[in-house]
């Protein structure tokens, strides 16, 4: 086949049915809704959330996980678009990171050293370790599917970012149930769960995000 013939062929398929941004938003919404419903139908929202939501630790937990979810998802969206600079979006990931460090410092300064161990340990770390990865499955599938329609330069990295975003979303959802409020707990168990999802995203991305 001559190149001109191929061009004729491609030209006949000119119309773009779905734009990348559109796919991403729809898939993401579906993924988030599935995970939210999954939490509501299994564990449910924390019983005393109405009162607890006003306490600084709970506010911090909800805010931080949401911040990670938003910044990482934005990066995941851009990473599928060729020729777009990722620098500023990548730098915004420092926001949740520095917020976490500030939270840890604040916690260490108000909690006596003898109680640090108990704060890290929390009460339901195994729930956290199970639910963060579980709640991330649907968003991860949605984000990987979307990026697959795009053209990421580095499939492994794009997969990792997808995993980080999905982990952040899962954390932001699980935080509405989670009864452990210390930033030390957050820094330990949530981080492990999110890192597991990030690693999984990278491994899957290497396979499915090639184009």
């Amino acid at each position, binding site marked *: *086949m*001559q*190149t*001109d*013939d*191929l*061009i*004729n*062929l*491609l*030209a*006949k*398929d*000119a*119309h*773009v049915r*779905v*734009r*990348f*941004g559109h*796919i991403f938003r729809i898939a993401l919404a579906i993924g988030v809704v599935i995970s939210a419903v999954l939490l509501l139908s299994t564990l449910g929202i924390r019983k005393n959330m109405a009162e607890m939501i006003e306490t600084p630790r709970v506010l911090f937990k909800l805010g931080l996980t949401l911040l990670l979810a938003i910044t990482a998802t934005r990066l995941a969206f851009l990473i*599928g*678009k*060729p*020729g*777009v600079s990722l620098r500023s979006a990548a730098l915004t990931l420092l926001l949740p990171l520095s917020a976490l460090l500030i939270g840890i410092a604040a916690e260490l300064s108000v909690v006596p050293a003898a109680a640090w161990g108990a704060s890290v340990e929390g009460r339901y770390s195994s729930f956290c370790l199970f639910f963060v990865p579980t709640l991330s499955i649907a968003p991860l599938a949605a984000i990987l599917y979307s990026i697959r*329609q*795009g*053209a990421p*330069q580095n499939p492994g990295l794009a997969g990792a970012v997808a995993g980080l975003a999905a982990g952040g979303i899962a954390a932001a959802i699980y935080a509405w149930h989670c009864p452990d409020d210390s930033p030390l707990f957050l820094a330990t168990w949530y981080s492990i769960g999110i890192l597991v999802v990030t690693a999984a995203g990278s491994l899957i991305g290497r396979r499915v995000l*090639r*184009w």
Partner: protein
Amino acid sequence: MNHSAREEEWAAWMCAAMAGDTLAYHHFLKAITPYLRSIARRRCDQFGAPPSEVEDVVQEVLLAVHLKRGTWDTSRPVGPWLSAIVRNKLIDSLRRRGRHVSVPIEDVMETLEAIPHDEGADRLDVDRMLEGLRDPQRDIVRSISLGGAGIRETAERLQMTEGAVRVALHRALKGLAALYRSDRRANG
């Protein structure tokens, strides 16, 4: 025509193409091909790939541009988008041909800005790749590319609706790109 005027023309064609204007899309693809060929030729030279592979690389890049055009944000300039796709696909394609390559994005941009001198070539691997497709996809691809038939003619001949032919054509093109990827990997 200077570079920015040309880029604006490309962007206008691409915009129209995404809305379904096949003629504009044809102009766009015809216009970028000489540039793709000149980049591909330079890279094949540099990394010791035989010149016969140049046209394969060009066609693979064209397919990638085609399948990923939904990622172009019409509010952004088309040049950087195109350069990024071309560069990534070029690296990928040469790598699968067994070359360890790196292609600086600046080089791609520069080539896109230069005036190409074009000599067309043909030979294609796509022919062999077509064997990997199933009917009616293969039939549709043959009919349109080699026979020069339109969507409507093809639909009438195969007794399909035009919509079904369009969908099958799109799938066939996706299939071709996937065949390229798997074929090269399997062959080393």
